[in-house]
């Protein structure tokens, strides 16, 4: 099998002359790298030496073989080193990229799946979003600038990160905030949560080809992004109708129940954790939230259906919180003249709790560490997709609600 040679490492240590040959077509030899004119594969480097014609290709040459010794094409010989599927059949596996521009996944997320047929045998995921320069590592920056930068870190949840930066700075500077301000912030954060969760629904709908839901969720998401309190509260009947409709949708349950299951793990955050029965919610310890009658939504099955239900429950509950909060704050920039100190804050972003630690010196942020939910979730992808059918695997990855922008590698 010529494919075996394609992964053989070649000795490249000394400076023997190198030529390039196709793993499939040994007769194709070039002096510089490129692709094979016959099949388009990358040419592999090879040292020029006396035995430059590899013997393993003789097995392909039927007409020249003596058939009596049965040396040709023994399936057992040829397939014995191939990876086995769980039904015992040795097959060729291919690496297929899904992303950075794939219709069913967030942009900038690169997911490379090793496919065995249309079953996922392994997965590698990384983000291609440019976000490494957003936090100051050496150069100090003033507090307002820092808040702006953090708000731009994740375009999918700007308010949550803005709030996170503000609270960490206020914590460092020892600023107390008024209860009305705290409630206004809750209003803003919950509005963003509703928009984000509707975005989750829209992605779910897109991944499953559920056009009606895609249109509804997208329209509601656009409505809710900049809505004031009255406009938000006016969405309630529509959201209730949407939930009722989803309960009656055929195939929805079979599409999501028992799929994408995750073991309860301390890497789980936010709705993914709450769908797994873990009470992990930064809001449940926040006195301002407790005063508004906050309660966590929880499911135990840890599958895609549970995540769907948690997202739907939280949309409704966030509306209740917005109603109780009484206002939606605009989150103006902080004024911390020349305070110094260490600060820490945890905010329950729509994707789970994000934690920021920073050091403030004379009103300037001199160091900061950020921990985001998507960073944790990225490492779950392999366990989530292994041995799943392709559609199920992609849906499970989508149900994690990864934001490539907040992933810190």
């Amino acid at each position, binding site marked *: 099998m010529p494919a075996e040679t394609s992964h053989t490492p070649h000795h490249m240590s000394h400076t023997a002359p190198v030529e390039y040959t196709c793993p499939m077509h040994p007769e194709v030899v070039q002096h510089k790298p490129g692709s094979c004119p*016959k*099949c*388009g594969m990358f040419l592999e480097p090879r040292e020029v030496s006396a035995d430059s014609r590899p013997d393993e290709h003789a097995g392909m040459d039927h007409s020249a073989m003596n058939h009596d010794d049965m040396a040709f094409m023994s399936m057992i010989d040829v397939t014995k080193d191939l990876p086995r599927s769980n039904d015992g059949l040795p097959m060729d596996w*291919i690496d*297929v990229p899904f992303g950075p521009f*794939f*219709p*069913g996944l967030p942009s900038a997320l690169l997911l490379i799946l090793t*496919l065995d*047929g*249309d079953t996922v045998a392994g997965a590698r995921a990384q983000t291609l979003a440019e976000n490494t320069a957003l936090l100051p590592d050496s150069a100090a920056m003033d507090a307002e600038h820092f808040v702006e930068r953090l708000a731009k870190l994740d375009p999918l949840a700007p308010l949550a990160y803005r709030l996170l930066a503000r609270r960490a700075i206020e914590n460092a500077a020892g600023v107390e905030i008024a209860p009305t301000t705290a409630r206004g912030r809750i209003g803003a954060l919950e509005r963003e949560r509703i928009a984000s969760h509707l975005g989750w629904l829209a992605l779910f*709908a*897109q*991944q*499953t*080809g*559920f*056009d*009606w*839901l895609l249109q509804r969720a997208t329209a509601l998401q656009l409505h809710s992004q900049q809505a004031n309190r009255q406009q938000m509260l006016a969405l309630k009947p529509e959201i209730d109708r949407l939930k009722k409709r989803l309960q009656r*949708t*055929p*195939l*929805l349950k*079979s*599409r999501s129940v028992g799929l994408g299951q995750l073991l309860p793990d301390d890497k789980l955050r936010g709705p993914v954790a709450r769908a797994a029965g873990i009470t992990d919610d930064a809001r449940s310890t926040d006195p301002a939230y407790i005063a508004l009658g906050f309660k966590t939504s929880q499911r135990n099955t840890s599958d895609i259906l549970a995540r769907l239900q948690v997202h739907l429950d939280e949309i409704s509950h966030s509306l209740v919180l917005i109603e109780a909060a009484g206002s939606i704050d605009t989150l103006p920039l902080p004024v911390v003249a020349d305070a110094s100190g260490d600060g820490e804050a945890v905010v329950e972003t729509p994707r789970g709790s994000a934690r920021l630690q920073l050091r403030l010196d004379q009103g300037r942020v001199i160091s900061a560490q950020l921990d985001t939910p998507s960073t944790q979730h990225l490492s779950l992808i392999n366990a989530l997709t292994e041995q799943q*059918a*392709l*559609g*199920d695997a*992609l849906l499970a990855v989508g149900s994690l609600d990864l934001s490539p922008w907040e992933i810190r590698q």
Partner: protein
Amino acid sequence: MTSLLIILLLLAGAYLVAVLEAWIANGRLRFATPVLAGIAMLGRESIVPRQPDRIFFETAPVLLLISAILGAMVLPLTPDLITTDLATGALFINAALVYVLVALLMAGWGPDGAYAMIGGWRFLGQLIAYAMLIVMPITAVAMRAESLLTTQIVVSQAGLWNIVYQPLGFGLFFVAAMALAFLPPFDLATANSELASGVEAEYSGVRLAVFRLARLTLVMTLAAATVVFYLGGWQGPWLPPWAWSGLKILAVTAAMLLAGRLMPRIREADLMAWGWMLGIPLALLNIFLVGVLVLVWP
């Protein structure tokens, strides 16, 4: 002459399907959109991926179109408006539409791209799930008509349409026909979010236009087949026969297009399991029920 008329009607029907599809998708009824989209597609570059199986790549869209058109040739719009009233018409339409599978396999394998190839093989699995649910209900229809002639099948429904006489068969056939036309929720082979359009992924420009035209024609053919086999064909009071055929075909098309929007795509494993563990036993039950019914109350 008749055949030319029917082909023109078929193309007009495919056009209406496109209008209907856009209407259902975005709520705007615009008759010019498909023409403009078609011209735009002709004007776009038609790229051939590197090192493909060129014969497969070029043949697939044409074969899909031929398959859809030939399938429609045995379906009567009125007692006289039929191209070839083949004596084995009900079997012939199956034979023609099986080449939808062959076309999609070619389209999947041809371009040497991962998304397309997986889409093609997925459709073979889909065929294994739906094929029996096409042929077994048609058998039951033929039992009542005592003939494989499609005109005879329509005539046999003069007293009572088959949708009432064998509702189980109708349900199975309708669902299977949607699966044959890879309409949502059975669009496993062309799933946009799972395979970036799957078998259609590598087609662009005029080749994609042919592919889309073939798909629309296929929907038309299957709607017409549903009407002929289950909805009494051209029969109906007051209106002339061609009007009844047209109205029924459009209604079935709309139902097929609408259903897919209201539910998520089916999982391949579920499709196979339900097709075999539920669909085939039900189809056999349908044959048995119709068998008894035909003997006691023809």
